[in-house]
């Protein structure tokens, strides 16, 4: 079954552009003249902790559109129904991925039929049940997977990403 909804929503988010709200933007400080103090640069990208949804919002094999770490980076939140390595939530089956193809940045669409993410641009595809492994395609990294945390209330937070998101030299734009 096709899921063009994701394509459309993804594209809209993708084209919106410019709405960058990240931790990086808030980090700038004003210092007095002549008092330029070196702020030690951080060795890691500082990711925001963004609430994506609550566990109760998810239905098995129904993709939910998300964006992380900012509005210009569309993604998908999935409850797969069977536990997978890296899955979170009470059933260990919740995962989230970027939907920008790490080949050329086309928006991937989700196939519920075989739980894959597929690229309309050059036909690459990724396995949502195998950590976003590229099944076949042109990308040279597997699909960037968002690092998730579920709190006591069942709220799902994204707090990191495993690979470089297409179209960025840094996952968190500054």
């Amino acid at each position, binding site marked *: 079954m*096709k899921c063009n909804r994701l394509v459309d929503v993804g594209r809209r988010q*993708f084209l919106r*552009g*410019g709405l*960058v709200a990240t931790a990086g933007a808030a980090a700038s400080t004003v210092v007095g003249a002549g008092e330029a103090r070196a702020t030690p640069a951080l060795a*890691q*990208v500082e990711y925001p902790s963004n609430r994506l949804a609550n566990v109760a919002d998810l239905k098995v094999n129904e993709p939910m559109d998300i964006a992380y770490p900012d509005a*210009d*980076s569309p993604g998908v939140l999935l409850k797969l129904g069977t536990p997978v*390595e*890296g899955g979170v939530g009470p059933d260990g089956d919740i995962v989230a991925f970027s939907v920008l193809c*790490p*080949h*050329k*940045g*086309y*928006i991937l*669409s989700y*196939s519920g*039929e*075989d739980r*894959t993410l*597929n*690229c*309309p*641009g*050059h*036909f*690459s*595809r990724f*396995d949502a*049940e*195998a*950590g*976003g*492994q*590229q*099944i*076949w*395609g*042109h*990308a*040279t*990294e*597997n*699909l960037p*997977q968002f690092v998730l945390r579920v709190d006591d209330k069942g709220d799902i937070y994204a707090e990191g*990403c*495993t*690979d*470089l998101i*297409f*179209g*960025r*030299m*840094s*996952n*968190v*734009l*500054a």
Partner: protein
Amino acid sequence: MAFKRQIDRLPIPPADAKVHNVTCHYCIVGCGYKAYTWPRNKQGGTAPDQNALGIDLSQQQGAMGEWASPSMYNIVKQNGQDVHLMVLPDQECVVNGGLASIRGSRMAENRPSEVTGTQQQRLTDPLVWRYGTWQPTTWDDALDLVARVTARIIAEGSEDDLVVSMFDHGGSAGGYENTWGTGKLYFGSMKVKNCRIHNRPAYNSEVHASRDMGVDELNYAYEDYQLTDTIFLIGGNPTETQTNLFFNHWVPGMQNGARVVIVDPRRSLTVQHCEQVAGPENVLHLAINEGTDLALANAIFTHIADQGWVDRDFIEKSTFRGDVAVGEDEAHPAPLGSFEMAVEKCRISVDEAAEICGVPAADIVKAAEWIAKPHEDGTRRKCVTAYEKGVIWGNDNYRTIGALVNIALATGNIGREGGGVCRLGGHQEGYFRPSDAHVGRPPTYVDRLLINGGGKVHHIWACDHYKTTLNASEFKRIHKKRADMVKDAIDAAAGKTREELVDAIVDAVNRGGLFVVDVDIIHSQIGQNAHVILPAAESNEMNLASMNGERRLRLSERYMDPPGQAKPDCLIAAGIAQHMERVLREMGKNEYADQFKGFDWESEEDAFMDGYHSANPEVTYERLRAMGNNGVQEPVVGFEDGKLVGTPRLYADGVFTRHGREDGKALFCGGAWRGWQAAGKEEEKKSHRFWVNNGRANIFWQNWFLDQENEFVMDRYPYPFVEMNPEDMAELGLVAGDLIELYNGNGATQGMVYPTPTAKRGHVFMVFASPMGAQGNIVNPGVNELVLPDYKHVWADIRKIADAPKEVKGISFKSKEVVL
């Protein structure tokens, strides 16, 4: 669980980063890339004027925008200094239009780096067998031993005792510089006839028929796919193996309305991708029985001729109008001559072909219509014919390729826009050598010579026959046994003088041993048998000129140092020549020594000028640099307004020259269908359950020589995949990922079973040339009359070896076909 890079940020190339032209050195297509290098302690910023890309990197880039995947980055040595390296696809290159393949995108991370630890398998020093293993040494020490043993063996016997395996391709470590270096040594200074090429057991053409008919096999321009009515693909899978030719040229062609005829026993990904682009109604897949391509092509040719869908004017003006021009003989597996002769000889009815090929007669007629039936307004139909290893390494190579060229000639589809009958190609090309006429035709079957105890010294240049030859089980066993005799002799001579060592080696080879010299970039599998190993450089560790599948010549520039003492092959060949000259003079053979003069090259550019430039005086490094990643299409015919002038497509004047005929007339091929051509194929098919179809997949480059150390690739496929129908799997008690053995009378190999519902029952498809399971182990020794192997036709039985090993668990076994 999939391999995670855990990289979330990359350095930005500063505005003043050095920029180098790069032609991807992997496949024939030769996509353009730009390599940016900059000092380790510098970086650019996100503002357009702060970075080399000139774009605002604080913003999300859109689809098809500039982006560096982490695999496009590394830290390498440049003039002895650590520098950042970023290799990005070139948006301005007409070949790829900014697209990157899964191979080319990994050029940067497949560079040796002492900082990031990539490709530490690269050879850094000459190695000699000493104290029971390989020890590093100087070039002079290693080359002295090579020259002393080689010169002594030739002096006491002849040049026929020297066996040479050498690449003949462009890109990678090939190219005009390196084919000239090796060619000048073995075909100039010497006349070595017992030689073979990297992928076949003799020194011959993959496409003798096309050349004998007067048609060079790379005669079109890639834009022809965008100008044509029909693409006729036979024995090729370009979405995987010429990826950006497919996406940057075929796809626009289909979007322009081109229909596609695909002949392949397997439903390849190219079939599915064409259906996605053109719509299934515009794609005709003829899933013929394996090895029956000739019957099909002859039936199409016959039907086209009978219907009169031919270009009479072209046939009259540009093709031979007698009867037989070249008779069938030992060197010509079919007669060559006129159109009428070919029609008579090749005649086979659509119904008869349908029976042989196992496809409906109506589909054969439909294919003929799509290829040749004139448009309703009477204008001729344009058709590009593209073929590759499915027929080259197939049944009856000569006649099958001849049959395809027949169709193109009959319909006037050569030398014109939207036409061409071409190899898709594997590597790029970059061949410039002295004449190989002394090799003879048919040439020596070199593997058989070695297996039968022939040859005493074996020089190997960037070939790993352990993974890429036929009858490999037997070849490996005997090659190792013969090489071990020499290793034992060297071990026994430990501590003795150089003269005594050479005596011991010569004694061992005279008793049936083999002295092996291996020139390569890594310590290969066949290198395990070597006594001297010489470290070579790759493209971009040297400047390298090659041409792609539309004869587009580019200079891919050096941007980093070769690892350690490694050198370009042309300079290694020069070193061997210089040491041969010296040793021969010491032996008092001054006249022979004189033949090894003329190798005083300081650089690869010197080799290029000595070779390619001597026949193409307009072409220099400086001019090629100026032509950038779009280069110039060969042949180069002039230099005007500061630019080299090339040739978009061959034979635009209707004059055919590849066969060397003075009349300039193309010949047709009269090769009738004759069943299985190579020895042993028919019997093997009858006695085994599975046809083991085989070939490449997009993720690997050739025999995985770099991929075997690439985590991204090895995480996906720890073992060679074997695609199998799920019902066959069930009958054999197999589940996805099980390790299986494929075995027959030739030997055995192993793979990892990959369930594939589109696979026909009784057919499996195995990715070839894996270091973890060489498909060549089970290929029989049968070759055609001109010693072309038939790798594609192998039948075997299959049994389970083991449950999926740990590294296989967790990888995806889902269909490779896109779901949109």
